[in-house]
């Protein structure tokens, strides 16, 4: 398979993640929305650290900012740092069990949210609500499924 073809699959999965990020859901479910972009981007960075890394994270973050109407650069900053941590430790993350990976993903989601909160706090006088942190749990619970689905895609199309 040519590298260009693999790139298309990665981009498509990222676009799907972006779509799920802005998809409207009923109000009570909104704070349980998993961090789809972090899940998908995290998987590709762990699986293909030489191809998908900070460049992808920065551009995806910019798209998230534009889609959510957040101040530009905030999600780019957070995702770049998260992806840096993943790419630096990809060997470790690959070799632990799925549930341990989920714990790490939960930790990274929390870090992501804290960086975003801190950056917005610099600009505006905002406060955090505990409801905002529920999505860390759902992101952790969904990680194994995302991992298995994306691994199947990666193996089927032999993306390396």
């Amino acid at each position, binding site marked *: 398979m040519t590298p260009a073809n693999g790139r298309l699959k990665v981009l498509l999965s990222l676009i799907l993640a972006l779509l799920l990020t802005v998809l409207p859901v009923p109000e009570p479910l909104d704070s349980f929305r998993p961090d789809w972009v972090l899940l998908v981007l995290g998987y590709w960075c762990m699986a293909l650290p030489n191809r998908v890394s900070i460049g992808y994270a920065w551009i995806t973050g910019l*798209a998230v900012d534009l889609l959510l109407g957040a101040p530009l650069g905030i999600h780019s900053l957070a995702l770049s740092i998260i992806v840096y941590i993943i790419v630096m430790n990809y060997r470790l993350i690959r070799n632990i069990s799925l549930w341990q990976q989920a714990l790490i993903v939960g930790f990274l989601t929390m870090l992501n949210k804290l960086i975003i909160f801190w950056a*917005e706090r610099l600009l505006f006088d905002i406060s955090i609500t505990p409801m905002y942190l529920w999505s860390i749990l759902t992101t952790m619970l969904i990680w194994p499924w995302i991992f298995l689905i994306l691994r199947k895609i990666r193996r089927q199309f032999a993306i390396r």
Partner: protein
Amino acid sequence: MKPIFATSTSLQLRLFFAVIASFSLIIVDSKFDSFANVRIYLNTAVSPLIYAADIPSEMLKGVSNNVVNRRDLRKQVKAQRDKLFIQQVQLLELKHLKEENKRLRALLNSPVHSDQRKLVAEIITVNSDPYSLQVVINKGALDGLYIGQPVLNEQGVVGQIVDVSATYSRVLLISDVTHGIPVRVQRNDIRAIANGSGELNSLNLPYMPHSTDVQVGDILVTSGLGGVFPEGYPVATVTEFSYQIGQPYAQVEAKPIVALERIRYVLLIWDGEDNSSDNETETNKGGTL
């Protein structure tokens, strides 16, 4: 395969550049107004995703429109027709009052109000930044929308445009933390500023002396002082006025008149200056009829 050391240094370098780029983007985006033009293009680039995300709720809307039965529709049409009739009669009165008002204002040498260009837009239901209160509407720069444009609905003030793309725009709601709107109390013309609280249904009025004549239930309307919102549109009703001894100011809270969590259609208005000729023709038409 490159040696590990080389990749990790380049990775750190890339992170360094990414962080620098993010910070400069944050600063440029929030401090320089001229960057708004760049944002229009960037927003337009991601607009297919916004419209794609709206498809499921549009489909649901279509389904619920199809399952209404004949009797309900008939009832609805009758109610609408009655309402329209009453409003047409009120409109006749309004036309008369408008003319009278214009003449009186001319007598007083006050600036004459002119009709403004108006446009109806629909809300696109998409998720947005959890730290700010905003909605997306389906009209953009192609329809002539601009940043800072007032957004209303049939009940009162909704907010103002903060971000435009070619085909959609973002409206900052009046209850967002970063939003403030100059108001006056309808009963006695006391001026104030209504700041958003970050909660959808509450506004704060800071710096109100405790001796101010503001009561619970007072209606706040736009004062037109900021230059963004036209004068006289209802904004909120006062829900709390309390004063603690030792505090320099009273604590005044208000609730927006528009049910901000349930808006579906909004009205955009333009400054009436360049439409004065349209207005003339309209009144002429009214005169000949």
